[in-house]
């Protein structure tokens, strides 16, 4: 099966000696939303920049819908739209002109109706004749998205698309991303610091740290595999210390002895909840309330990154 993007043994060493990427292998499926997570300097932007032709790779191969990004750069780049992390915009141009320019740059004939639709979708229509310097930061971010979509790409890179934007714009962007995938079959790769963003919209999650791709996994599968659950038991009476009979459980006594927290692995054959409750009963500890909570993608991410330190 042909992948939207196929990356093989990709490495990048900058002149300063910094190894930004090390032997990265990654296949991105057609029509998926892939979130690349990683701390600052992990190599996310370098990876995107190489695929888009902005940075030269030191080693490795990248193909876009089977087109090599070097020998068939035209065919490869035509398919890609990029929204970079920084707000790079032509300050003195109007919104309409700068978006139309982007379409032309990608070799597409003018299509005013498409530009109009894009600007309307991104609530930029009433600003179409405004110079970009007159726009707010959020509006500029929308212009960047319109520019990236002006040539109707099949693959869209969003590098930290919601960094520093307000909640409303973030929600709008998530909606747009979903619509692009559902209506246009666009493959979307986004890098983000916001785990909730990946949790909200991604199909798969890739974690990069120190230039290495630590894992790529279906989001739900990842959460199922690595996710831990915790059971919180609110006690009727304060417990001074844990009875010896409960010593075999991973238990913590919290909130001045009013709360027992039990952590367990969702993948384990037995969660131990049944026996714990029986043992509590046997020890004469009565329960007022209980609650379960699954660890978030953020917890998983932090654990993974810490493991590779």
């Amino acid at each position, binding site marked *: 099966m042909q992948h939207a993007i196929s990356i093989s043994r990709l490495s990048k060493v900058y002149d300063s000696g910094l190894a930004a990427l090390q032997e990265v292998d990654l296949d991105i499926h057609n029509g998926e939303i892939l979130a690349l997570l990683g701390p600052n300097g992990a190599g996310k932007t370098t990876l995107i920049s190489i695929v*888009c032709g902005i940075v030269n790779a030191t080693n490795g191969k990248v193909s876009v819908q089977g087109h090599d990004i070097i020998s068939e750069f035209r065919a490869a780049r035509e398919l890609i739209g990029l929204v970079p992390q920084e707000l790079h915009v032509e300050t003195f141009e109007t919104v309409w*002109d700068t978006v139309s320019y982007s379409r032309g740059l990608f070799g597409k004939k003018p299509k005013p109706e498409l530009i109009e639709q894009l600007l309307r979708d991104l609530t930029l229509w009433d600003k179409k004749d405004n110079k970009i310097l007159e726009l707010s930061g959020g509006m500029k971010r929308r212009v960047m998205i319109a520019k990236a979509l002006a040539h109707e790409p099949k693959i869209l890179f969003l590098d930290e698309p919601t960094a520093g934007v307000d909640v409303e714009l973030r929600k709008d962007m998530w909606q747009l991303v979903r619509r692009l995938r559902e209506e246009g079959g666009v493959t979307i790769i986004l890098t983000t610091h916001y785990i909730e963003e990946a949790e909200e919209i991604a199909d798969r999650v890739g974690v990069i740290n120190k230039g290495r791709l630590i894992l790529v996994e279906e989001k739900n599968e990842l959460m199922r595999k690595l996710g831990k659950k915790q059971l919180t038991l609110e006690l009727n009476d304060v417990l001074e210390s844990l009875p010896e009979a409960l010593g075999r459980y991973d238990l913590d006594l919290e909130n001045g002895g009013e709360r027992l927290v039990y952590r367990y692995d969702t993948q384990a054959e037995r969660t131990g909840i049944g026996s714990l409750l029986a043992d509590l009963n046997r020890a004469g500890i009565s329960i007022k309330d209980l609650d379960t909570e699954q660890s978030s993608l953020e917890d998983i991410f932090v654990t993974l990154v810490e493991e590779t330190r």
Partner: protein
Amino acid sequence: MNFEAVKAIYIFEMARMRRTLLQSVVSPVLSTSLYFIVFGAAIGSRIEEINGVPYGSFIVPGLMMLTLLQNSISNASFGIYFPKFVGTIYEVLSAPISFLEIVLGYVGAAATKSLILGTIILATAHLFVPIEIRHPFWMLFFLVATAVTFSLFGFIIGIWADNFEKLQLIPLLVVTPLVFLGGSFYSIEMLPEFWQKVTLANPVLYLISGFRWSFYETSDVSVTVSIAMISLFLALCLGLVWWIFKTGYRLKV
């Protein structure tokens, strides 16, 4: 060939000229008029003719070259430096366009602006002095070749420069002196013999001399040498630009 992309860059760059019409057109016209007042009227009244050409008419090709060189370099260098400075160069680098198409767009627009200016200067000069163009084809050749070559040179400076100071450095410290000392306002025959020989090392002399020949059939050096020199400089600039895109010098890391 990605014609749409070349057109997009070209139109985008030309739009900048429209936006800064006062600075782009009025300023060179004003300075040319001042040159005519100072050199043509004040000094020209004391120099009657050079090689049979009235002094006021004699300096027209030199003045056109001065404007052409300065504007070609500044237009092209700023055209490519600005996207680098504000970061919008990412879009050009990630677009499906070859180096040749990028150069065609940027250098084509810069050269067009210079040609428009050259024509305006010629028209302005015509208001002050009588002008005769004996070889219109060669006049056009020198005009276009110089605009293209020096726009390419400006493009190289724009890529090389990593701050605004560097952007101004070569035009101010190298090009302007070369133009002034390249026979814009005089024939090198008017110089002492030693300085005549030194001036022969100035490449701009060949451009001005050839250009002036196309007007009045009078030149400091052979017109064939002038054509060879501009062709050589064009080839050098093309080679450098090709190398820049091949290596990604100052564009890609």
